[in-house]
């Protein structure tokens, strides 16, 4: 009886192990497939270069671009002031009789 009992315990354990393995395998398969299906749907498309190095270069370029814009604005503003100053003096009108130097 004892031997049968041991055999019975063993077979029970084995069956339980097989059952658990099967459930695990099926659920693992289903979970994996489910995630990959979902992954296809949800996967975010990278709309910005993903590496930190590229990100750093882009943000740095943006800062330099703003510096360039501000510098250009300052130069144009200075040029405009100079033009307005000359216009106020009234000396910008060309003299049609002035000799042309070449």
């Amino acid at each position: 009886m004892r031997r049968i009992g041991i055999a019975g315990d063993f077979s029970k354990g084995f069956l339980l192990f097989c059952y658990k393995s099967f459930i695990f395998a099926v659920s693992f398969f289903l979970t994996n497939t489910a995630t990959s299906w979902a992954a296809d749907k949800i996967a975010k498309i990278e709309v910005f270069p993903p590496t930190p190095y590229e990100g750093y270069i882009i943000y740095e370029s943006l800062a330099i671009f703003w510096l360039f814009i501000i510098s250009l604005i300052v130069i144009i503003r200075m040029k405009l002031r100079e033009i307005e100053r000359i216009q106020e003096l009234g000396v910008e009108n060309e003299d049609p009789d002035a000799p042309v130097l070449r």
Partner: protein
Amino acid sequence: MNCPRLKDWLDERYDWVGMKKLAKSKLIPEHRYDLWYYTGGITLFLFILQFITGMLMALYYVPHIDFAHKSIIEIVTKLNMGWFFRSLHHWGAQLCIAFLFIHLFGTLLLKSYRKPREFVWVTGFVLLGISIFFGLSGYLLLWDERAFAATRVATGGAGAFPVIGWFIKAFLRGSMDVTGDTLLRFYAFHVAILPIITLGLVGLHLILVQYHGMSVPLSLEKEKLREAPFFPNVFYKDLMIWLVVTGVLVTLTVLMPPEIGVKADPLAPPPENIKPEWYFLFLLQTLKLFPGEILGLNGETIAILLVACAILFFFLIPFFDRKSARGEKSPLYTWIGVIYLLYFLTMTVVGFLS
């Protein structure tokens, strides 16, 4: 830079000196509202940027339902700076329409539409309508589920218009539903038909502005105003403003590149909480205000008819406002303008938050 030989070469062929004199002879009045003059220049600048970035995108885009979405993903992920130009095109369109609205409401509130500038208003208004259609047609080209659902709603809404609605809907879709035919049709509108009409109308608008000169607000008409030559004074100011707009545009482009959704599936249910582009939100909110049925008639049809009447009245304001045409103050039309502006802003904000 002094190139006497080039100058001589040009002088022999063209009246170079005459052209310079003409550019300097155009005068712009200076007053406390003259900032509004620059909104038109900004819009023109953004239009040009849209044309350039659009041409670059058109080199790689494939207008077919099987490849459209994929081609945009490839532009963004595989091409050098592809993500940047797509984002620049997206944000350029948003800013362009925003500045068109600012320019429109500025013109309305300053009564710049009054006699003899009615056709300047008409061409500008038509350009706004075309720009909105540019936005709608460009949105579908992405061919993701949101673009697909939004186009279905927009073209379906046009179908609710009485008598000619079915024709507009069929004309826009090219078939019973939004399909590959619609995509091809919208592509043709976006890259060929609308740009040609836009070029013609922008040209006409600019010629009319040059012909009539800059409008001065009614309240300042009797004052003696200082005038500055367009070239170089106002042109340099334009340049500075364009530089700032470019900076803002590039910053938005880099910090907020637009997302790409899942490829459109005509059989899938529409995504939850779908919203159209911001400039359609006021229309959507207005439609939501109406019940499904009013006195046995379709509520949506009545709503669309009322909105169409309101837009038509807005379009014809220069012809209704007789007081402004006579040079008198017309507070009624100022209030009408303010009400239109407040309604547009409120409904857009409510639509955005809901």
